[in-house]
C-alpha cells in the first residue's frame, strides 16, 4: 500500500501544482517540494520500522501489493519492492527533492506545468522501480518519458527542440521494441501454461523457451530498450544533446535517475528472464561496455561545452555498468548497484554545479570561464570533491563501485578489465580538465563578480557531498540491502552455461 | 428477366462512367458534386437491380441508405462550397490548392 501512496502523492501533487499555480504561481514549488519529501519519507519511515527484518536471509521481497486491473488480459496492478528497488527509490526521491530545489529560481515561466512534469517524471521513475507487472512496467516507462520530453522541449536551452525530438525518438524506438518483446513473451508464456495469459513478472519468470533463437530475439528487444536508456555506445547519441539542453533539474534527473532505469531493467528483467540468452551475448555486451568507457572518455575530453562534457562522462561511467552486469559475478553486480547510486549523486552534482555556473555566467563554454576559484572558493572546493569522485578517488563512493566492477570483471575477462582500467586514466584527464578550465587560472575580467553559493545551493550540495562521502567510507548497508535481490541475476546465467 | 437486369446494370455503368468523367473533367466544384451524385445514383440503381434479381429486399434497403447518405453529403458539401466561395471568390478546383505540401 505504501508504494501506491508514494506514487499517488507524486501524481496528485503534480496535478495540484498545475492547478494551484494558475492562481498562485509561487505556490507550485512548495507543493512540489512537500510532495517529494512526503514520498521520500514514506519508504524511509517504513524502513525504520522494519529495519531488522530487511537483511534477514531468504526474504527478498519486502513489500508486495497486488490488485486486479484488467483481469481479462491478465493485467494486474502489481507493485513490489526488494532491496534493489528500495535503494533506487531512495535515490529517486533524494535527487527528486534536490531537483525541485534546483528549479526554485531557475524556472520563471509556466511554473505549474513545469512542476507537474517534474513530479510525473519522478512518479514514472518510481513506478518503473516497483512495477512487477510487465504491462504496468511499460505504462510507467512511458509515463516517465513524455513529461521528460516536455521538460526538455519547453524549458530547455537554445537547441531544445532538436534535443527533445532526439531524446524522444531514441527512447520511443527502444520502448516499441520492448513492447513487442513483452507481447511475445506474454503469448509464449500463455501458450505454454495452457491459456493462462498473464503479464505478471513472477509468472513469466517460469517461461521456458523451446529454441534459443526466439529467446535471443525477445531478450534483445528488452535489452535494446534498456541499453538505449543506459546508454551504450553506439546508441548513446541522444544523451549529450538531451543532457546539455535540458534545464538543470532535467539534467539531474536524466543523469541521476533515467539512466538508472536502463540498468535496473537489465538486472531485473533481462538477466532473470533470459539467463541463457544473456549468457550467450555476455562477452559482446562487456565489450561494448568497455568501448563505451573509453569512447565516452575520449569524447568528454574533447568537449568545450561544460554540460556536454559531463554528459559524455556519463557515457563512460555507464560503460562500467554494462561491463559489471554481464560479468555475472556478485562482486561486480554489487559494484554496479553502487555505481548506479554514486554516479547518480556525483554526476548529478556536477550537472547542478554546471547549472549554477550557467546561471551566473550565462555560458556553458569552458573557454569563457577560468579562475573562478578566486571568486567562488566554496563552489570550487565542492567542484573538486565531485570531480575527484568522477575520477574515482577512493574516499568517495565511485571508487568502491568501479573497484568492485573491475575486480569482478577481471575474474571473467582480464583483457577487458584491463582496457576498462585505462578508463580510469582517461577519467582523470577529462575530470582535471574541468577543474583546470573552470576554476584554475586567472579570473576572466567580468563586469560583476559571480557570487558564491546561496543557502539553498548549500543545502543541495551538502546533501550530495554527505551522500558521496558516506557511500565511500561506509558502503556496507547498501551491499547488505541489495544482496538478496541480486542473487537471481547472477546465479541463473552462470547456471545457464556462462563461465 | 435476366436481360432486363443486364440492361439496367448497363445503364448504371454508363451512368457511373458519366459521373466519373464529370468528376475528372469538370473544374467547377458544384458540377463535381453533381457528378458525384450521379455516381451515387448509378450505384443505387445497380443495388435495386441486383435486389430484384435475387428477390431480396437488401437492394432496396441499400438504396434508401444511399439516398440518406447522399442527402447528408450534399448538405455538408454545399455548405463547404458556400464557404469556399465566400473565402476564395472562386469555384475552380485548380485554384484551390491550399493543402499542397
Amino acid at each position, binding site marked *: 500500500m505504501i508504494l501506491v501512496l508514494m506514487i499517488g502523492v507524486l501524481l496528485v501533487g503534480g496535478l495540484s501544482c498545475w492547478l494551484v499555480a494558475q492562481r498562485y504561481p509561487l505556490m507550485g514549488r512548495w507543493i512540489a517540494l512537500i510532495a517529494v519529501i512526503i514520498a521520500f519519507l514514506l519508504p524511509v519511515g517504513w524502513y525504520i520500522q522494519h529495519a531488522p527484518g530487511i537483511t534477514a536471509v531468504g526474504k527478498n521481497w519486502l513489500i508486495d501489493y497486488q490488485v486486479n486491473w484488467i483481469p481479462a488480459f491478465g493485467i494486474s496492478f502489481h507493485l513490489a519492492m526488494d532491496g534493489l528497488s528500495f535503494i533506487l527509490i531512495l535515490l529517486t526521491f533524494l535527487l527528486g527533492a534536490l531537483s525541485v530545489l534546483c528549479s526554485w529560481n531557475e524556472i520563471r515561466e509556466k511554473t505549474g506545468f513545469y512542476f507537474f512534469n517534474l513530479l510525473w517524471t519522478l512518479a514514472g521513475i518510481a513506478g518503473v522501480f516497483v512495477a512487477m507487472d510487465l504491462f504496468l512496467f511499460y505504462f510507467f516507462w512511458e509515463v516517465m518519458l513524455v513529461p521528460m520530453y516536455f521538460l526538455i522541449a519547453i524549458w530547455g536551452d537554445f537547441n531544445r527542440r532538436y534535443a527533445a525530438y532526439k531524446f524522444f525518438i531514441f527512447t520511443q524506438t527502444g520502448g516499441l521494441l520492448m513492447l513487442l518483446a513483452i507481447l511475445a513473451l506474454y503469448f509464449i508464456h500463455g501458450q505454454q501454461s495452457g491459456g493462462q495469459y498473464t503479464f505478471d513478472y513472477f509468472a513469466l519468470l517460469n517461461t521456458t523457451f523451446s529454441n534459443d533463437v526466439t529467446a535471443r530475439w525477445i531478450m534483445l528487444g528488452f535489452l535494446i530498450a534498456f541499453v538505449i536508456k543506459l546508454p551504450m555506445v553506439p546508441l548513446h547519441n541522444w544523451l549529450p544533446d538531451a543532457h546539455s539542453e535540458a534545464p538543470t533539474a532535467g539534467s539531474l534527473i536524466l543523469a541521476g535517475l533515467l539512466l538508472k532505469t536502463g540498468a535496473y531493467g537489465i538486472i531485473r528483467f533481462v538477466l532473470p528472464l533470459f539467463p541463457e540468452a544473456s549468457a550467450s551475448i555476455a562477452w559482446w555486451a562487456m565489450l561494448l561496455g568497455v568501448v563505451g568507457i573509453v569512447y565516452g572518455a575520449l569524447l568528454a*575530453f574533447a568537449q568545450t561545452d561544460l554540460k556536454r562534457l559531463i554528459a559524455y562522462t556519463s557515457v563512460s561511467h555507464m560503460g562500467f555498468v554494462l561491463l559489471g552486469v554481464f560479468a555475472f559475478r556478485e562482486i561486480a553486480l554489487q*559494484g554496479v548497484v553502487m555505481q548506479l547510486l554514486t554516479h547518480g549523486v556525483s554526476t548529478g552534482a556536477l550537472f547542478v554545479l554546471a547549472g549554477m555556473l550557467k546561471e551566473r555566467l550565462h555560458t556553458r563554454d569552458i573557454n569563457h570561464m577560468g579562475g573562478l576559484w578566486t571568486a567562488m572558493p566554496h563552489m570550487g572546493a565542492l567542484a573538486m570533491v565531485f570531480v*575527484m569522485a568522477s575520477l574515482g578517488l577512493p574516499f568517495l563512493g565511485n571508487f*568502491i563501485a568501479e573497484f568492485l566492477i573491475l575486480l569482478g570483471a577481471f575474474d571473467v575477462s582480464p583483457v577487458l578489465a584491463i582496457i576498462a582500467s585505462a578508463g580510469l586514466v582517461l577519467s582523470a584527464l577529462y575530470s582535471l*580538465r574541468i577543474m583546470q578550465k573552470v576554476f584554475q587560472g586567472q579570473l576572466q575580467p567580468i563586469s560583476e563578480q559571480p557570487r558564491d553559493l546561496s543557502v539553498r545551493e548549500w543545502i543541495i550540495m551538502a546533501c550530495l557531498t554527505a551522500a558521496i562521502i558516506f557511500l565511500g567510507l561506509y558502503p556496507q548497508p547498501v551491499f547488505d540491502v541489495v544482496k538478496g535481490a541480486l542473487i537471481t541475476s547472477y546465479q541463473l546465467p552462470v547456471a545457464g552455461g556462462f563461465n | 428477366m435476366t436481360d432486363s437486369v443486364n440492361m439496367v446494370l448497363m445503364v448504371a455503368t454508363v451512368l457511373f462512367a458519366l459521373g466519373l468523367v464529370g468528376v475528372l473533367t469538370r473544374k467547377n466544384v458544384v458540377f463535381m458534386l453533381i457528378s458525384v451524385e450521379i455516381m451515387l445514383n448509378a450505384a443505387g440503381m445497380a443495388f435495386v437491380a441486383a435486389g430484384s434479381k435475387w428477390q431480396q429486399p437488401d437492394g432496396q434497403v441499400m438504396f434508401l441508405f444511399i439516398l440518406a447518405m447522399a442527402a447528408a453529403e450534399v448538405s455538408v458539401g454545399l455548405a463547404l462550397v458556400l464557404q469556399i466561395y465566400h473565402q476564395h471568390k472562386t469555384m475552380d478546383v485548380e485554384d484551390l490548392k491550399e493543402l499542397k505540401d
Partner: protein
Amino acid sequence: MNSLLPYIPALPLFGFVILSLFGRRLSKPVTAWLGAGTVCIAALITITVALAFLQTTPPGGAYSQLLWSWFTVGNLSVDISLRVDALTLVFIFIITFVGALIHIYSAFFMWHDRDMARFFASMNLFVCSMLLLVMADNLVLMYLGWEGVGLCSYLLIGFWYEVPSNSRAANKAFLITRIGDTALLIGLFLLFKELGTLNMNAILQEAPRHFTTGGSNIVLITVLLLVGGMGKSAQIPLQTWLPDAMAGPSPVSALIHAATMVTAGVYLIARMHGLFQLSPVTMAIVAIVGAITLLVAGCSALAQTDIKRILAYSTISQIGYMFLALGVGAWSAAVFHFFTHAFFKALLFLAAGVVIEALHHEHNIFMMGGLRKRMPEVFITFLAGAAALSALPLVSAGFFSKDAILWYSWSSAGGSALLWFMALVGAFITALYSTRLMLVVFWGDMKTPVHQQPDRGMVIPLVILAFFSITAGFIEWPHNMIHLSLFSDHVQQVLPGTVMKENLPPEWLFQAIAAVVTLLGVYLGITLYYGKSGVRWQQSPPLAATREFFFSGWKFDQLYNFIFVKPFLFLTRINKSDVIDRMYNGIAQASLRLNGWFSVSQNGSLRLYIVGVLAGILFIITLQLLL
C-alpha cells in the same frame, strides 16, 4: 598502545575537516595552530608508540587496530584497519616527525598567503593519507592512502592556481602517477584473482605456497606493482612529473616531493618483499630501473639552474638509489636510505625555500651568490644537508646509508659489478652537483640583495633537521667499523636479511673507493665553480648541446609529447562532434530526402487525386481478376 593508533591519522584528518569547513572564518594564528598543532600531536603520539614498540615488541610483531569493516562483498572483505610493525614504524616516524617540523616551518612561510587555511587543510589531508598508506593492513586501504596523497600532491602543486603553468604541472603530476596507480590497481585485481585476499599479511603468507618462483603470474603481479611504485616514486620512465611539481610552495616540495610521498614506491616494494622475492626477474628490473634513474636524474641535476629543480632531480636520483637497493635485496639499506634522505632532503628544500623567499622569489642559482655571510644560519644548515646529500664520509648521515647501498649493489646475491659501478658514478655526480649548488649559491658575489631574514620559527626546524642530517646515520654503522646496527636489527623484524655472495673482496676497499670518488666529485666541483662566476659550458658546442640535453631532462618530455600527447589531442579533436552521430544524422537526412520525393505527389490538385484513386481501384481489380 593499539587504541592510540587511530589518533595518529585522525588528528591531521580532524585538522583537515575543521580547516576546510571553517577555514575562511578562522584567524591566521588559529589556522596555524590547528594546522601545525594536529601534526605535532600526532608526532608525539607516534613517538610514544615507537618508544613502547622499541621497549617491548608487541605480540605478532605489530600493533593493530580494527576501526570498522569497510565492505564485505562476495568473498572479498576489506576492513578499515591499521597495523604498525617495525617497517611502518620507521615510515610513520618520518611522516609525522619531519611532517611536524615542516608544518611549523610552513606556519611562518605561508603566513602572508591569502589561502593559508586551504594550504594547511591540504597539508593535513596529505599527512593523514600518507599515514593511512603506510598503516593500512590491506592493499585496498593502502590504495586509498595512495590515491589520497596523489590528490593532495595535485592540490598543493597547483596551490597557486592562478598561474596556468602551475595547474598544468599539477595535472601532469596527477596524470602520470595515475598511470602508475592504474597498473597497481590491475596488480591488485590479479593478486585477488590468484590468492582471494587483499590483506597484506595473508598475501605474504599465502604467496610462497601459491606461486612458483619466477612463474608468469607472479612476475606479472610484481611488475604491475613496480609500475605503480615507479609512478609515485618518479622512476624512469614515469619520472617527468617531479621536476615540474616544484611549482608548489617549498614546504610542499619538502614534505611531499622529497621526504614522504615519493618514497611510497619504496614502501610498497619493501612491504610486498615476499612477492618480489618470488620473482627474481622483477628484482633485477627494479635494480636496473633504479640504477638508470639515478644516473639520468643525476646528470639532469648537473645542468639545472633552478635551485628547486636541482633538488628535484637529486630526489629522483636518490630514490633511484633506494630502488637499486631494493632490487639487489638490500631491503634494510633501502629503508635506511629513505630514513636519512628524508631528513637531509627536507632540510635542503626548506632552506631553499628560505633563500628563494629572501631573494624576492628568485629561483635561478646564478642570480644568487654570496649568501654565506648574509644568511649564516641558512648557510650552515644547507651545508649540513649538502654534505649528507653528497655523502661526505663519516660526518654525514647520507654516507652511512649510501655506503651500505654501494656495498650491497656489488656484494649481495642480486648485485653485480655493473650496478655497483653505476651507483659509484652516481655518487660522483651527486657530489659534483651538490658542490656546484653550494658554491654558486653561497660563495661568490652577491647578485640579488637579501631583502628579509628568515623568521626564528623557520630556522629552528632547519637546525633540527640539520642535526639529524648529520647524526641520523650513527645508528647503523658498516659492519667492518663498529658493530652497531640498530636500524637494520629493527627493520629486519619485518624485512628479510640480505643474501650475500661468496668470496667477496674486503668491505673497506669499497668504502675507500666510495670515499675517494665522493671527494673527487667535490674537488672537481670546487675547481670548476669556486670563485668563478659564469661557466664555460656554453663555449664549446658539443658541451653546450650536452648541457642542453641534460637541462631538458634527457628530452623525455619532448618524447612523450610527440608519442602520446600530440596524437591523443589530435584524435580527440577530430572526433569532437562524435562520428557515430553522423550515422543518426544520416538516417534523419535520408528520411527528409524521402519526404521530399513523396511530397511531390501532394500537389493539391483534387482531380489528380481522383485519378490516383481510380488507378488504384483499377489496379486492385485487375489484380483480383488476374490472380
